[in-house]
């Protein structure tokens, strides 16, 4: 099976700090891959490199047959690579509905002039987009608040809205940056099932950063471990958990780690 995403020797430094150091990775279609590592290991930076938000110093990224190493974020998104943000970046002043509809227009054919003139094609497109956005909001359990502003949502609901918004891109690969962070225990419990469910429903491949070890172990087919920008382990959750290098990275020296 050929990889959906193939990163080769990706490297990025900030000043003297090597945030991501020659990381290579192949994500297979249909798998759920976990990405773990201590704080500051370079996980988010790795996501930023894949999604065009940070330029790589060296290395290449191939996604679904396209070289996206120096592509713009919007081009990458339209190829079907969607993401959420660790620090949640919703369009706070827009309604839940509009948050999702923005992303739903990624493959829109009608433009500004058609929209202003209200051509039948653009009206149909808007209607279909609205319907689909509503479905996605229903899926994440926010259908009762579609006209609320995103900024008015409590924390856990924001994470769900961000996932709905990412799904509106009709992605092939979904990158989730700490989706369980800040959720209460019952929300956390539901999240793993939810991720499994959307993976099946939308035929997704998932790459997720997560500190919650039980969740990673239960959910992921494979796990990759970053420490100080380097990939120190890769394999099944069980193998990675026993890996001395991983234990060393989490326990050695550093006080902060998996929680």
């Amino acid at each position, binding site marked *: 099976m050929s990889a959906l995403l193939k990163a080769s020797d990706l490297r990025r430094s900030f000043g003297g700090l090597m945030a991501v150091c020659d990381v290579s990775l192949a994500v297979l279609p249909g798998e759920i891959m976990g990405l773990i590592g201590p704080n500051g290991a370079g996980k988010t930076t790795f996501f930023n490199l894949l*999604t065009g938000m940070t330029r790589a110093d060296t290395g290449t990224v191939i996604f679904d047959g396209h070289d996206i190493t120096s592509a*713009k974020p919007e081009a990458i*998104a339209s190829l079907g690579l969607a993401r959420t943000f660790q620090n949640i970046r919703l369009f706070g*002043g827009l309604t839940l509905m509009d948050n999702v509809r*923005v992303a739903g*227009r990624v493959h829109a054919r009608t433009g500004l002039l058609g929209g202003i003139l*209200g051509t039948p094609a653009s009206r149909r497109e808007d209607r279909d987009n*609205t319907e689909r956005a509503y479905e996605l909001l229903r899926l994440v359990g926010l259908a009762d608040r579609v006209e609320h502003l995103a900024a008015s949502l409590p924390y856990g609901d924001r994470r769900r809205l961000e996932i709905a918004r990412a799904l509106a891109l009709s992605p092939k690969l979904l990158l989730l940056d700490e989706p369980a962070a800040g959720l209460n225990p019952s929300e956390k419990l539901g999240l793993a099932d939810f991720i499994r469910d959307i993976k099946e429903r939308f035929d997704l491949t998932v790459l997720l950063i997560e500190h919650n070890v039980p969740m990673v172990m239960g959910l992921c087919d494979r796990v990759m471990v970053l420490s100080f920008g380097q990939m120190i382990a890769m394999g099944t959750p069980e193998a990675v958990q026993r890996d001395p290098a991983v234990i060393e990275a989490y326990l050695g020296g550093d006080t902060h780690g998996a929680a």
Partner: protein
Amino acid sequence: MSGFFENYGFLIVTIVQQALLGLSIYFPLMAGQLSLASIGFYSLGGYVAAIMGTHPYFAPWRAALGFFMFPLEWLFALILGVVLGIAVGYPALRLRGIYLALATIAFVQVVNVAVLNMPVAGGAVGIFGIPQAFESRLDYIWFFGPLFALAMFVVYRITAIGRGLAFFAVREDELAAGAMGVRTTANKVTAFVLGCALAAVTGAMSAPFLNTWNARQGTFDASVTCLAYVLIGGSRSLWGPLFGAALLVSLPEVLRPLKDSRMILNGVVLVAVCVYLPQGLMGGLAALRTRLAAGRGGVA
């Protein structure tokens, strides 16, 4: 009623004309871009009309077209606005926030110096005796009114259609907008160019309205005044520019009986609006409406 329009007609036409400039700043603001370039495009649009209206080179055109020379002037101003808007927008919109504002102020200054040194623009004196479209200046409402209605329609449609969401997404969070497939640069430039085009056409209509055109039309002061229309009126409502222009244009007139102290009161009113209605007049109105609605809900 006719007496009312005779007394206040000129004021009303001026309010609509100024509201158009406010709207031209509102367009880029929809995509979160604070641009003060409008007044530069207004100035250039006015020169296009002034030159086409007075220069001997265009005499045969004027003879052939008659009144239709005016729409042609608008068209030329529009084309200039769009082309120059794109040329200025692409580099300038790489800057954000206050840096973009500064760059666009610099653009206004460049335009100013350029027209002062162009013989065809009449130097510091400017261009005089621009042919009038109407007998009465009040009739210029037939120029500005439809343009204002068109611009408002466009703004309204942008807020109503899915395509318009891209602007607002960029305004809310440019980075996230990109990650959601929004072509951020193209959207910022589009919103900016819409403003440039509107300002240029407004200028082209204003040159005959004001009869003379010179570099004073495109000063930094004028830029700030246009921005004030939007901020005072409310930068999140399409009615903001109109209400802001109405207040700022008419206030000095209404306060005229107060003689010298009127400028003080003028300033006091503006400061009060800024302090007590940070979302502008329209924002204050919306807040009042929600409060009233909530009050009714409490009783029911």
